[in-house]
């Protein structure tokens, strides 16, 4: 399947994957983040249960300490 990850095309050999699997596969490893799929925020407790499908637009925003 193909998705748009942070405004870039990205391709995976499987038909769907969970948010947790995406984070692992793409090594998106910073501790704190915001994830939006097609404009909807996915809270942390739903990373395992939320499925990303072909054509989805996924945004991963890192939150760095400091302020």
């Amino acid at each position, binding site marked *: 399947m193909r998705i748009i990850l942070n405004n870039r095309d990205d391709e995976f050999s499987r038909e769907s994957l969970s948010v947790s699997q995406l984070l692992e596969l793409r090594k998106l490893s910073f*501790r*704190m983040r915001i994830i939006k799929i097609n404009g909807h*925020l996915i809270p942390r407790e739903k990373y395992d249960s939320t499925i990303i499908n072909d054509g989805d637009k996924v945004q991963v925003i*890192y*939150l760095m300490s*400091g*302020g």
Partner: protein
Amino acid sequence: MDHLSRFRVGIAGAGGLGSNCAVSLARSGIGTLVISDFDVVEPGNLNRQYFFINQLGMFKTTALKETIARINPDTIVIAHTGKLHRANIPEIFAGCDVIVEAFDAEEMKEMLAETIQIKMPDIPVIIGSGLAGWGNNESLRCRKIDDTLYVCGDETTETTPDNPALAPRVSIVANMQADKVIEILMNKEL
């Protein structure tokens, strides 16, 4: 800028980002600022936060309200002194047209952004992320994720003992956030 006097802006945290952002927004004539913070002014804050020696020991909300009254008494400051959490955020920032995320700790940034995006989905939130250290200022930017989410900063650097948050880059990001607030409000009908 009479237009800006009709709006209410929430500022979550009154540290380096929040204090500088609030002062810029008051100078710009925002009508009402809702400022939330639980902390008191300490000597270690003065390297980057908009406070003064004679305000040491005061609640940051109280000190900032006092400072803003000296700059622009027409800006009303509603100070909330206490911790923000998932349950009280919608109530404290009720009626805000835009909310600025100005926390230091990354867990708090995530909690605030998640809470607003889920419980107040129409209200734009402007996050600060990545401002530690010095130099490399071309990496600081304000990025629009969508109509309700913006990120200001380099989205890369985090504060560590070797790479602290310092006044110049913190103020740049705080003012990027303030500028984005103004841009959003100038495009907003009442």
